[in-house]
Structure formats: C-alpha cells, structure tokens
C-alpha cells in the first residue's frame, strides 16, 4: 500500500475510486492513525469514567464530542491539500480576524477571554485553530522558497508567528499562546533553520526570562514558577494541586491502586481531576504500567504522524505534517510533565483523555489535516 505508483493511480476524488478499494481507503482515512486515535479515545473514556466518579453524563458527552471530532476529522481529510496551500494566506488572515473579534466580543472563561459565543452556534476558541493555521501559512510560505530559509524570510516568518501569538497573549491565554508560538517554531525547525539561530534564540530567551519575570510576569505566573521550584512554600494554596497530584501518582506505585480505587481522586483531593490533572488519576489507579500504556498509545500516533511527514512528497506537506505531529507531542508532553512536576503548571489538557470540548475538536481537525496530506500530498501537483 506504500507503493507510490499505486498511490498515484488512486489519488483523486472519491468519485474516481473503484469498488475494489476498501471503504477507509475511499474516504481517505489513514487506518493506523484512526486505530490509534480510537484506542486513545476508548482508553480516555475509560479513565474519565473513574475520574468523574462514574458520572455517565460526563462520559457520554465526551464520547459524543469524540464522535463529532472523528467525523470532523474525516471531513477535513477530504480537503485537497492544494486548496489549503493556495488559500493559506486567506485562512491565516481569517484566523487573525477571528482573534481580533475575540478581543472585542470575546467571552471570558477560566480567566482567559478567548471564547466566541455567537447565538445559534456552539461557543469556540479561535486561538485553538491558530496552532494549525500558523504552521499552514509557514509551510506554504517556506516551501515556496529555498531551504534552509534566509534571514529575511526568517524575519517575515517570525512576524507571521508573533502577530497571532501577541493577539492570544492579549486574550490572557498564555498556555495557548505558547502552543501557537511553538507550532510556528516547529515549522521553522523542520524547514532547516540554522542551529546558530536556534541557539542564539534560546540564549536570548534565557537572558530575557529574568526581565520577563521581574517586569512583565503577572502575579499568578510568578506564583506558578515559584511553586514549580518549591511546591511546599504554599502547600494549601498555590502548591496544593501539584502536591496532591504527586501524592496521587506516587501512591499509585507500579501497579496502581486498582481501577476506581484512587483515594486521592475519589475523595476530591485532586482538583481538576477530570480535566488537566486526569493523568494523576490514571497514575494512581493503574500505576506506572497504566501510564506506560498511555505513552505507548501516544507514541504509536506520533510515529504514524512522523511516517506521514516522511512519505509525503512535497515540502509543504512535509512541513505541515511534521509541525502538526510535533504540536501534538508538545501537548502530550507539557501536560504530563506539568502533572508530574517536571514543568510549571500550565493550563493544558491531556489530549483525548481530559474532559474537554474544543481541544478535542481541534485535535481531530489536526489529524484530519494529516490524513488529507497523506492522501493528497504524495503527488506533486504543480
């Protein structure tokens, strides 16, 4: 099935495909990726059922969102890559417009003014989409030029990244801003940006961070940093979440306390136990083995993303597929690292496991893009 000739023959619209091909092939679904995602979703629902204390309505709602997400993914998978590539700028501008709109009519939730709640439509977060729109535009921009990118191109690319990042920062949503920023950076890294520039960028960040800490950082951000270094400076306040989370993880041991027996979560010691801190519930009840199983599932999905980035034939598809995969990894890693105390607390859910709405939908849109790239990106069309 990886025969390029075969692929070339069958590429095209659904109408062209013959009945000899299985259904998943006809609808451009990448079977291993779908299988990995379905496994993650089922495992996620399984953990969520315990984390929510057996609340069926929460689990049912999550399952519905996942189903909607899957279908969205399949629909996005039908998009022609060339269409995306051609209209990258328009999509980007539309995204910026939405971010601007949020600043005017946005609705605040959990301290971040990042939601648009139009009558008759489900509320959504435009900033979430920027995690794909920024790499989309950069992939489109960079793939048309010689790689590795020159300095001027880097400046333009930096501008393209920083404008939406700034708008998201204005929404007071640091976590998403970092993700949008990193999604663009991934595209640049994959495009071969010189290590010298990367290192000097890192060095600048390192130098700038004290200035940020002392002059720009808000109180709650400073608190998170301080708490990261010493959770016990305020064990019942700022450090409470991470302390209780570590107690839950540590007390799970290798085998866990057993499904549904997590005292830390069922006795409400873990806050946000079915959203951001759901990993603590998993680690407490199913132990290190359960977490390794989850990491295994994620690695499978990541590997498939890498594979797709590897097999697609044009640079645009490569850059976009690689960026989406790395962004997904970053999501997974940041959440796990923050819950286990390896990183400061940043409000990000654990992909496909945490109870959430838009983040699941945008994740599936990302995977839909991957599938689209996988099917359409193999033959250079121009």
């Amino acid at each position, binding site marked *: 099935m990886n025969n390029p000739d075969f692929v070339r023959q069958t590429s095209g619209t659904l109408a062209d495909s013959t009945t000899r091909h299985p259904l998943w092939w006809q609808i451009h679904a990448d079977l291993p990726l779908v299988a990995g995602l379905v496994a993650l979703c089922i495992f996620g629902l399984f953990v969520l059922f315990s984390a929510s204390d057996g609340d069926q309505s929460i689990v049912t709602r999550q399952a519905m969102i996942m189903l909607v997400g899957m279908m969205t993914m399949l629909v996005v998978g039908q998009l022609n890559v060339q269409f995306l590539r051609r209209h990258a700028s328009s999509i980007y501008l539309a995204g910026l417009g939405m971010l601007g709109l949020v600043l005017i009519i946005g609705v605040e939730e959990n301290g971040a003014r990042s939601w648009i709640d139009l009558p008759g439509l489900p509320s959504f977060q435009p900033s979430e989409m920027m995690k794909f729109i920024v790499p989309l535009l950069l992939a489109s921009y960079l793939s*048309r*030029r*010689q*790689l*590795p990118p020159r300095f001027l*191109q880097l400046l333009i690319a930096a501008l393209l990244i920083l404008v939406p990042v700034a708008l998201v920062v204005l929404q007071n949503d640091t976590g998403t801003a970092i993700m949008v920023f990193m999604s663009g950076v*991934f595209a640049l*890294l*994959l*495009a*071969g940006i010189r290590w010298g520039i990367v290192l000097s960028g890192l060095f600048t960040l390192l130098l700038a961070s004290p200035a940020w800490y002392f002059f720009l950082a808000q109180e709650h951000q400073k608190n998170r940093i301080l708490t990261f270094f010493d959770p016990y400076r305020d064990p019942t306040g700022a450090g409470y979440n991470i302390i*209780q989370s*570590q*107690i*839950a*993880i*540590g*007390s*799970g*041991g*290798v085998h866990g306390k057993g499904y549904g027996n997590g*005292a*830390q979560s*069922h*006795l*409400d*010691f873990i806050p946000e136990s079915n959203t951001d801190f759901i990993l603590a519930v998993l*680690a407490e009840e199913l*132990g*290190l083995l359960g*977490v*390794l199983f989850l*990491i295994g599932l994620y*690695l499978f999905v*990541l590997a498939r993303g*890498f594979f797709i*980035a*590897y097999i697609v034939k044009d*640079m645009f598809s*490569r*850059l976009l597929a*690689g960026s989406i995969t*790395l962004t997904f*990894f970053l999501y997974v*890693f940041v959440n*796990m*690292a923050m819950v*286990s*105390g*390896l990183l400061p607390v940043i409000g990000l859910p654990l992909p496909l496991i945490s109870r959430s709405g838009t983040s699941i939908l945008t994740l599936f849109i990302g995977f839909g893009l991957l599938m689209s790239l996988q099917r359409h990106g193999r033959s250079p069309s121009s």
Partner: protein
Amino acid sequence: MTPKLQLKDHEAEQRLFIRRLSIAGVLILLLFTALIGKLADLQIANYEYFSARSDDNRLHSQYVPPMRGLLFDRNGEILAGNQPIFNLTVVSEQVENLNGTLQFLGSLVRLTAEDIDQFRNRMQRNRVPFTSVPLRYALSDEEKSRVAVNSHLLPGIAIEPQFVRSYPFNELTAHSVGYVSEINREELERMNDGQRENYGGTNHIGKSGIEFIYEELLHGTVGYETVEKNNLGQVMRRLDRTDPIAGHNLTLHMDSRLQIAAERALGDVRGAVVAIEPSTGGILAMVSKPGFDPNLFVTGITSKDYSMLVNDVVNTPLYNRSISPYAPGSTVKPFIGLAGLELNYVDYEYSINDPGYFRLPNVSYRFGDWTLRTAIGGGHGQTNLQKAIYQSCDTFFYELGNRMGIDDMHGFLSRFGLGENLAMDINFARTGVLPSIDWKRENVGEPWYPGNTLHASIGQGYMLATPMQMATATAILANEGRVVQPRMLKAVDNIPAEPVAENPVDNLVLSDHDYWHFIHESMTMVVHRPTSNVFRDYGGAYLTTAALDPEMPYKMAGKTGTAQVVAIDQSIRSSDDIQVSELNKDHAWFISFAPAINDYIEPKIALAVFVENGESGSGVAAPIAKEIIDTYLLDILQIDFGQSQQNLHLISQTSE
C-alpha cells in the same frame, strides 16, 4: 533577487527535512524517557513516602468520647445525668458567606451577639480545618425544624447531637455535686500526655464538688475510630473502631429527699446545712444557700449570668458556705465541757456562781456573758456543767477554759476534727482554725494572751469552723467517740466503696464512758427541758422546738450557737446602711443529733445548721434543724418510735 527564480534543490531539501525530523524523533524519545524517569522516581523510588502521604490525607483517627458516669443519690435518684442536646454547628470552610449566613441563622434561631462572640472564640481555639464548631447549644425542637427546613440554603451548617451533663435538681445540688464545664487551657496544661490523650474527645471536665473530686472515675476512657474523610472533611467510611469505656456510675450517700427538706427548711436565708449519717460518716445532705443553677455552666454560661453570680457580694451564690469557716460560737461548749470532764477540770457537781461576767485575776476587764448581753445585770446564778450547757452560760466556760488552758483545749478539740479537714472526698473544704499558741505565733505573730483562751472557750476569737466540721464533730459526739470521716461516695457501679483515708484519726476513748451520756443528756435538755421565756433560759431551744411539738416521738440532742460577726467587709459597710446592720447581725448555729438518749436506736443523723446573720441560734437555726430531723426520721426512715422500741428490744435480745 526573486526567490522563486532560484533553483530548488529538492533532494537536498528533503534530506535536510528528514535530518530535522529524525532529530525531533530522538528528542521526543529523550523527553519521554525523562518523563518516565520522573514517574519512576515518584512511583517506584518514593512509593512508600507518597503512599503514606495518601493515607494521611484520607485516614483520620478521631476520638470517640466516653459517656460520663452517672451520679445517683442513695435511693437511685439521678443527681447528674447525660442528656442529648442538639447543637447548631458550623464548618466554616463550607460556608460561602459567614456573616450573611450568621445573619440568616439569627432570623431562624435565637442567636445573641454573645453567642456569635463565643463562636468566634471557639473558632480561633480549634482551628483544625473542616471540623465543626458549635454556634448555639441546645436548640429547641422548633428551632431545629426551622433550620432543617432551610438546610439547602445553609451549606456547612449542621445540627449535631451531643450528650451534655444535666443536673435535674438544679440549684439543690450545685454545691455538693458540683458541675462540669468546658475544659480550659490551664486544666489542659496541668494534664500529663496520657490524660490529655484521654480527653481528646471530651469538651467538659468537673469543676467543683463531686464532679471535680471523682473526675477520674467519672470520665471513662476515650475510644478511637479510624475514618476515611474526603477533601471537604466529610466522613465517607468508618474503617476501624475502639469503643470508649464509659465512666463509672457513682452512688452518693446523699438522700435527695433530705437535701430537698434541708433546702426548704433553710428557706430564703444565706446559710448552710450539713447532715451526716453517724454510723458511716456518709453525708446525707449538704446545702449551701443561696445556690445557683449548675446547668448554666455546662454549655458555657453567658457573661451576664456569670457577672450576676459573681457580683452579688452579699449573697455570693458561688460560695459554698457548708465548707467555709465561721466562728462556731456556743456550739463548741459541749466539746469543751467534755474536755473539762475528761481532763478532770470539772466533775458533774462542780459549779460556779455566775455574776454575768468573768474577770481574769488582777484584771479589771469583764468578759461579759454574750447570751445575757441584752439583759440588764444579773447572771445564771449557781451553775454547774449541765446547766452551763443547756443555758449556754458563757461565764462557766470562761472559768473552765481559763483553768484548762489553750493547750489542753486544742489537744482535746482536735480529736473531733476541728482545725483540719477530716472529709475523705471533699478535699477543697476549708480547715477552719483551732487556735493554739503556735498557731497564733505563726499566723498572727503575737504571743498567746489569757483572754484568747476565754474567747476560744465560747467558740469566738480566733476559732473558726465550717458547718461540715461541726456536723462531723457532732457525729463523733453522737457515736460516743467513734470517729467517722465524712464522705460523699457510697458505691461505685453499685459496689460499696470505701474511700481510703489519707490520715485516719483514732477513735476517742474516754476514761469514763458515762461522760458521753452526760453530755448527750445535757444537749437533750437544750431541746427538751421546759423553760419559761425569760432571758436566763435564752441559750435553750425548747421554746422554738420541742415546745411547739408536744407529741415529738423521739429525743433530739442539740446545742445553739450565736456567733458574733467578727469582721465585716469594709466595702459593704460603706455601701448600704440597711445592709450593714443586716450583715452585722450574729450568725446563728445549731448542732444536733437524733435520736438521742435512746436505748434501742442509735443516732441516725447528726447535723449542723448555719444561718448567716441569723441572729439567734435558738430562734432561727434550731427550728430548721428540727424540721430536717423530723423529715429524716419520720418521713424518710419512717421509724415508728413507739413500735420500734419494742421490736428493737426483741431483736437485740434474740441476737445477743
């Protein structure tokens, strides 16, 4: 330069991309490795630590307070019980708006500013998070239902049952049984670690009376229970329980019926009654008036109630008069007379001619006869010991005391427990003063003067005794020298209890046993010897007792006392002239035992009646004593003196 015109080296670009992708892949694996390392550190290396922390989070050992032992009187009547009350409690962590909630609660239940004040104090004291703190004790049924109906508007507010001490006799037993109240800081600090542990679940501790003395027996042993609590402190499961051991039930010698009778007989005066069973030393009644309601102290007395009790400097309801020292006055005369007989200073016939005063040799000062001080001139005339007792002749005792000297007097009277606390389980009773040369040198810093002895001979001067001491001395007198130490405790869990005497006192054996009968007879004359209403017979109590009850079926021995008020508090003296004259009046005493001079029935009761500023032992105290003894012998013991003399005669014949 237009980039689009540059030749793109697709092969090179792809190689660059794949290199970068590979680096990313390696980085991903490294980062996951670091993450797994961190998880392994938490879940394997520190598993024991976090496992323990997790258990600490959820498992709580909590105290289960033991039920306090009950107190019964000798007839099984409950003197102190445990009553369930329903308290309004607050878990402040669960209350969103405390002030608003308190305001709303104020519209549902009676909630004074003081209740709220005390609640805030308690909150600061027990700051264990998520524990409920009482806001109001003892809700009424109506208040309970009003709170229950609105419970959905009151998160964190609960109605919790609690057992608290209740004293069904209210004022009646306040001074004898005492009361419990909330443990204070000093009491906690006095405890050792084991005791403090045992009081972990207990809020109350005995503060006075029996509740204080037998605290250890009454309290019981704390129990434990391991519970699983959630983050809100709510108990989810009970995992393990060690039941508490209830305190011992104590039975007292007290007879609540006699206690009631004594209180009623005293009426509306400031005074005290102590009644003792001569055969055992058991305290049948112990009343101090005015009393107070001990129930007020149990759930925290309001400062208004407390200041009313404390600021009443005249009535001092918190002051236990039954164990407080006063000049015993003439009530000591039978004991001094007995000393005179035993120590050979007088015999039955010895008499003096009383001019109404006594003069020390070579001193012109006249020691007047207090009983005659309202009369003009004259004395008791020719007076022997018996007459000196039943007419309470001061001059005779001045003369006797002067010859006897303070050393002999002190030595003999101490055999009756004067000047010390003989009581076995009333350890806070005052000892009074049985003066001696040494005592005066130590406490007054002066040498002993002969005049001091004269004052002591009539129970004045330095001599002080508590009503309980006088009742005890009377019991020993009634027992003809067999010393009984007064005690409250009769039985523990229905098993007769014998408190261990710390310093047992030897029985008093006289050289001639008949001296006892002589004194008994003399004291019986105080009550039964018919007299006319003239000043010479002032010391007798016949007119106020036996004369009013011609059919009195038993003989009662007694002695009046009318003690001069030695010291009056200066602040009271200046405050109110009417009060001053009232407080200047003499204290009235009467000691008594009955039945006396009875061949068949031993004395059943010995008592001391004390009326502060009562003016007259015979006029005020004696009738009170008669009423109490009547109640005890005739109503409570229901002794049929006509019949029982026959029966007991038969019984004693057959048994001997």
